[in-house]
Protein backbone atom coordinates (compact mmCIF):
# COMPACT_ATOMS: atom_id res chain seq x y z
CA UNK A 1 0.00 0.00 0.00
CA UNK A 2 1.50 3.35 -1.00
CA UNK A 3 2.03 5.93 1.68
CA UNK A 4 2.84 9.13 -0.16
CA UNK A 5 2.15 11.47 2.72
CA UNK A 6 4.12 9.48 5.22
CA UNK A 7 7.00 9.39 2.75
CA UNK A 8 6.79 13.13 2.18
CA UNK A 9 6.81 13.75 5.93
CA UNK A 10 9.90 11.61 6.43
CA UNK A 11 11.74 13.23 3.54
CA UNK A 12 10.94 16.78 4.59
CA UNK A 13 11.79 16.29 8.24
CA UNK A 14 15.00 14.48 7.53
CA UNK A 15 16.02 17.21 5.11
CA UNK A 16 15.18 20.11 7.40
CA UNK A 17 16.22 18.83 10.82
CA UNK A 18 18.80 16.12 10.19
CA UNK A 19 17.33 14.30 13.17
CA UNK A 20 19.36 11.85 15.21
CA UNK A 21 16.09 10.03 15.74
CA UNK A 22 12.81 10.15 13.85
CA UNK A 23 9.70 8.06 14.41
CA UNK A 24 6.59 8.51 12.25
CA UNK A 25 3.43 6.66 13.28
CA UNK A 26 0.10 6.69 11.50
CA UNK A 27 -2.99 6.86 13.73
CA UNK A 28 -5.48 7.59 10.98
CA UNK A 29 -7.44 4.39 11.43
CA UNK A 30 -8.27 5.44 14.99
CA UNK A 31 -9.98 8.58 13.72
CA UNK A 32 -11.53 7.48 10.45
CA UNK A 33 -15.08 7.57 11.79
CA UNK A 34 -14.80 10.69 13.88
CA UNK A 35 -16.92 13.81 13.40
CA UNK A 36 -14.00 15.94 12.36
CA UNK A 37 -13.29 13.68 9.38
CA UNK A 38 -16.86 13.56 8.10
CA UNK A 39 -16.79 14.12 4.35
CA UNK A 40 -13.01 13.99 4.13
CA UNK A 41 -11.31 12.37 1.15
CA UNK A 42 -8.16 11.44 3.05
CA UNK A 43 -8.93 9.08 5.89
CA UNK A 44 -5.90 6.83 5.61
CA UNK A 45 -3.12 9.38 6.13
CA UNK A 46 -4.85 12.00 8.24
CA UNK A 47 -3.39 11.62 11.73
CA UNK A 48 0.28 11.19 12.52
CA UNK A 49 2.47 10.96 15.60
CA UNK A 50 6.01 12.20 15.16
CA UNK A 51 9.01 11.97 17.44
CA UNK A 52 11.84 14.18 16.22
CA UNK A 53 15.17 14.49 17.99
CA UNK A 54 17.36 17.22 16.60
CA UNK A 55 19.76 19.98 17.56
CA UNK A 56 17.59 22.34 15.54
CA UNK A 57 15.30 22.59 18.56
CA UNK A 58 17.93 23.82 20.98
CA UNK A 59 17.05 27.05 22.76
CA UNK A 60 13.47 27.05 21.47
CA UNK A 61 10.29 26.80 23.51
CA UNK A 62 7.69 24.19 22.56
CA UNK A 63 5.34 26.40 20.53
CA UNK A 64 8.29 27.62 18.44
CA UNK A 65 9.46 24.04 17.85
CA UNK A 66 6.03 22.90 16.81
CA UNK A 67 5.63 25.85 14.47
CA UNK A 68 8.87 24.87 12.73
CA UNK A 69 7.40 21.46 11.98
CA UNK A 70 3.98 22.79 11.02
CA UNK A 71 5.55 25.27 8.59
CA UNK A 72 7.49 22.46 6.98
CA UNK A 73 4.37 20.32 6.63
CA UNK A 74 2.13 23.20 5.61
CA UNK A 75 1.18 21.63 2.29
CA UNK A 76 0.31 18.29 3.84
CA UNK A 77 -1.87 19.97 6.45
CA UNK A 78 -3.56 22.59 4.30
CA UNK A 79 -3.92 20.71 1.04
CA UNK A 80 -3.45 17.00 1.56
CA UNK A 81 -5.93 16.45 4.36
CA UNK A 82 -3.59 15.83 7.26
CA UNK A 83 -5.68 16.79 10.29
CA UNK A 84 -3.40 16.13 13.20
CA UNK A 85 0.30 15.93 13.72
CA UNK A 86 1.12 15.00 17.29
CA UNK A 87 4.62 16.08 18.10
CA UNK A 88 7.39 15.21 20.46
CA UNK A 89 10.31 17.52 19.71
CA UNK A 90 13.49 17.04 21.70
CA UNK A 91 17.12 18.01 21.55
CA UNK A 92 19.54 15.06 21.76
CA UNK A 93 20.31 15.97 25.39
CA UNK A 94 16.64 16.04 26.37
CA UNK A 95 16.07 12.78 24.52
CA UNK A 96 18.78 10.96 26.45
CA UNK A 97 16.97 11.64 29.71
CA UNK A 98 13.84 9.90 28.52
CA UNK A 99 14.17 8.19 25.14
CA UNK A 100 10.55 7.27 24.55
CA UNK A 101 8.71 7.69 21.27
CA UNK A 102 5.39 9.47 21.33
Amino acid at each position, binding site marked *: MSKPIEQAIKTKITGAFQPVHLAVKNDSSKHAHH*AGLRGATNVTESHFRLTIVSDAFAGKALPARHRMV*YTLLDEEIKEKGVHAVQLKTKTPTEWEKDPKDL
Partner: protein
Amino acid sequence: MFRTTVNRIPLRSTFSQSILRPQTALRFLSSETKNAIESAVNSAKVVLFMKGTPQQPQCGFSRATIQMLGQQGVDPEKFAAYNVLEDQELREGIKEYSQWPTIPQLYVDKEFVGGCDIVMSMAQSGELTELLEKHDALIPEEPYDEAEPEKAADAEVKPRSRD
Protein backbone atom coordinates in the same frame (compact mmCIF):
# COMPACT_ATOMS: atom_id res chain seq x y z
CA MET B 1 -21.91 45.32 9.08
CA PHE B 2 -21.09 41.86 10.21
CA ARG B 3 -22.09 41.63 13.86
CA THR B 4 -20.75 38.98 16.03
CA THR B 5 -21.74 38.00 19.50
CA VAL B 6 -19.69 35.49 21.24
CA ASN B 7 -21.12 33.19 23.87
CA ARG B 8 -18.95 31.55 26.47
CA ILE B 9 -19.37 27.89 27.26
CA PRO B 10 -18.71 27.64 30.98
CA LEU B 11 -16.84 24.52 31.96
CA ARG B 12 -19.48 23.11 34.27
CA SER B 13 -22.81 24.56 33.34
CA THR B 14 -25.31 23.92 30.59
CA PHE B 15 -24.17 23.91 27.04
CA SER B 16 -24.66 27.14 25.13
CA GLN B 17 -23.56 27.65 21.59
CA SER B 18 -21.10 30.04 20.11
CA ILE B 19 -23.11 32.06 17.64
CA LEU B 20 -20.54 33.34 15.20
CA ARG B 21 -22.54 32.98 12.00
CA PRO B 22 -20.55 31.44 9.17
CA GLN B 23 -20.65 33.32 5.91
CA THR B 24 -18.34 32.05 3.21
CA ALA B 25 -15.30 30.09 4.28
CA LEU B 26 -12.47 32.58 4.24
CA ARG B 27 -8.94 31.57 3.54
CA PHE B 28 -7.51 34.88 4.72
CA LEU B 29 -8.56 36.74 7.80
CA SER B 30 -11.14 39.42 7.18
CA SER B 31 -11.12 42.20 9.74
CA GLU B 32 -14.54 41.12 10.98
CA THR B 33 -13.36 37.59 11.62
CA LYS B 34 -10.20 38.88 13.20
CA ASN B 35 -12.21 41.12 15.52
CA ALA B 36 -14.55 38.29 16.42
CA ILE B 37 -11.61 36.04 17.24
CA GLU B 38 -9.94 38.76 19.25
CA SER B 39 -13.11 39.17 21.31
CA ALA B 40 -13.10 35.45 21.89
CA VAL B 41 -9.46 35.41 22.95
CA ASN B 42 -10.16 38.35 25.28
CA SER B 43 -13.37 36.90 26.67
CA ALA B 44 -11.78 34.99 29.53
CA LYS B 45 -8.47 34.30 31.21
CA VAL B 46 -8.34 30.78 29.89
CA VAL B 47 -9.78 30.24 26.41
CA LEU B 48 -9.87 26.95 24.58
CA PHE B 49 -10.77 26.62 20.90
CA MET B 50 -11.84 23.02 20.57
CA LYS B 51 -13.80 20.50 18.54
CA GLY B 52 -17.07 19.90 20.30
CA THR B 53 -17.98 21.19 23.75
CA PRO B 54 -16.47 20.60 27.18
CA GLN B 55 -19.39 18.29 27.95
CA GLN B 56 -19.21 16.52 24.59
CA PRO B 57 -15.82 16.81 22.97
CA GLN B 58 -15.79 15.61 19.37
CA CYS B 59 -12.11 14.83 19.18
CA GLY B 60 -9.73 12.91 21.42
CA PHE B 61 -7.19 15.72 21.54
CA SER B 62 -9.82 18.27 22.51
CA ARG B 63 -11.15 15.91 25.14
CA ALA B 64 -7.69 15.33 26.59
CA THR B 65 -7.05 19.06 26.78
CA ILE B 66 -10.34 19.79 28.54
CA GLN B 67 -9.63 17.01 31.00
CA MET B 68 -6.21 18.38 31.80
CA LEU B 69 -7.58 21.86 32.39
CA GLY B 70 -10.23 20.39 34.68
CA GLN B 71 -7.61 18.46 36.61
CA GLN B 72 -5.57 21.59 37.09
CA GLY B 73 -8.57 23.16 38.79
CA VAL B 74 -9.18 25.96 36.31
CA ASP B 75 -11.87 28.28 37.67
CA PRO B 76 -14.98 27.86 35.49
CA GLU B 77 -15.70 31.55 35.99
CA LYS B 78 -12.45 32.33 34.24
CA PHE B 79 -12.81 29.87 31.41
CA ALA B 80 -14.45 29.93 27.99
CA ALA B 81 -14.59 27.29 25.29
CA TYR B 82 -15.43 27.77 21.61
CA ASN B 83 -16.56 24.94 19.39
CA VAL B 84 -14.94 25.28 15.97
CA LEU B 85 -17.12 22.55 14.51
CA GLU B 86 -20.11 24.87 14.89
CA ASP B 87 -18.58 27.51 12.73
CA GLN B 88 -16.42 27.04 9.66
CA GLU B 89 -15.32 30.66 9.71
CA LEU B 90 -14.02 30.29 13.25
CA ARG B 91 -12.41 26.97 12.40
CA GLU B 92 -10.39 28.46 9.55
CA GLY B 93 -9.96 31.90 11.11
CA ILE B 94 -8.38 30.72 14.36
CA LYS B 95 -5.75 28.79 12.42
CA GLU B 96 -4.77 31.94 10.52
CA TYR B 97 -4.95 34.09 13.62
CA SER B 98 -2.75 31.82 15.74
CA GLN B 99 -0.55 30.73 12.83
CA TRP B 100 -1.22 27.23 14.06
CA PRO B 101 -2.82 24.60 11.89
CA THR B 102 -4.53 22.35 14.41
CA ILE B 103 -7.28 22.39 17.02
CA PRO B 104 -7.41 22.43 20.08
CA GLN B 105 -5.71 25.74 20.85
CA LEU B 106 -5.24 27.10 24.33
CA TYR B 107 -4.91 30.78 25.17
CA VAL B 108 -4.08 32.03 28.65
CA ASP B 109 -4.39 35.76 29.26
CA LYS B 110 -4.67 36.38 25.52
CA GLU B 111 -1.43 34.57 24.79
CA PHE B 112 -1.26 31.44 22.71
CA VAL B 113 0.07 28.53 24.77
CA GLY B 114 -0.21 25.56 22.44
CA GLY B 115 -2.16 22.52 21.40
CA CYS B 116 -2.79 19.22 23.12
CA ASP B 117 0.80 17.97 23.05
CA ILE B 118 2.17 21.15 24.54
CA VAL B 119 -0.51 21.33 27.22
CA MET B 120 0.17 17.70 28.11
CA SER B 121 3.91 18.25 28.25
CA MET B 122 3.44 21.32 30.45
CA ALA B 123 1.02 19.46 32.71
CA GLN B 124 3.59 16.73 33.22
CA SER B 125 6.44 19.11 33.95
CA GLY B 126 4.43 21.31 36.30
CA GLU B 127 4.72 24.27 33.98
CA LEU B 128 0.99 24.33 33.36
CA THR B 129 0.14 24.70 37.03
CA GLU B 130 2.74 27.43 37.31
CA LEU B 131 1.30 29.27 34.34
CA LEU B 132 -2.29 29.02 35.55
CA GLU B 133 -1.35 30.08 39.07
CA LYS B 134 0.65 32.98 37.78
CA HIS B 135 -2.37 34.20 35.83
CA ASP B 136 -4.74 33.58 38.72
CA ALA B 137 -6.84 31.16 36.72
CA LEU B 138 -7.36 28.44 39.31
CA ILE B 139 -10.26 27.86 41.68
CA PRO B 140 -9.39 29.77 44.82
CA GLU B 141 -8.66 27.68 47.88
CA GLU B 142 -10.80 28.42 50.88
CA PRO B 143 -8.77 29.90 53.68
CA TYR B 144 -8.45 27.61 56.67
CA ASP B 145 -9.16 29.58 59.78
CA GLU B 146 -6.87 28.45 62.61
CA ALA B 147 -9.07 30.12 65.22
CA GLU B 148 -12.20 28.26 64.16
CA PRO B 149 -11.22 24.68 63.44
CA GLU B 150 -14.82 23.50 63.53
CA LYS B 151 -15.31 25.37 60.24
CA ALA B 152 -12.96 22.89 58.65
CA ALA B 153 -15.39 20.11 59.35
CA ASP B 154 -17.92 21.80 57.07
CA ALA B 155 -15.41 22.77 54.44
CA GLU B 156 -15.71 21.22 51.01
CA VAL B 157 -13.36 18.38 50.33
CA LYS B 158 -10.64 19.76 48.05
CA PRO B 159 -8.77 17.61 45.61
CA ARG B 160 -5.38 16.62 46.95
CA SER B 161 -2.58 18.61 45.40
CA ARG B 162 -0.47 16.44 43.15
CA ASP B 163 3.27 16.95 43.44
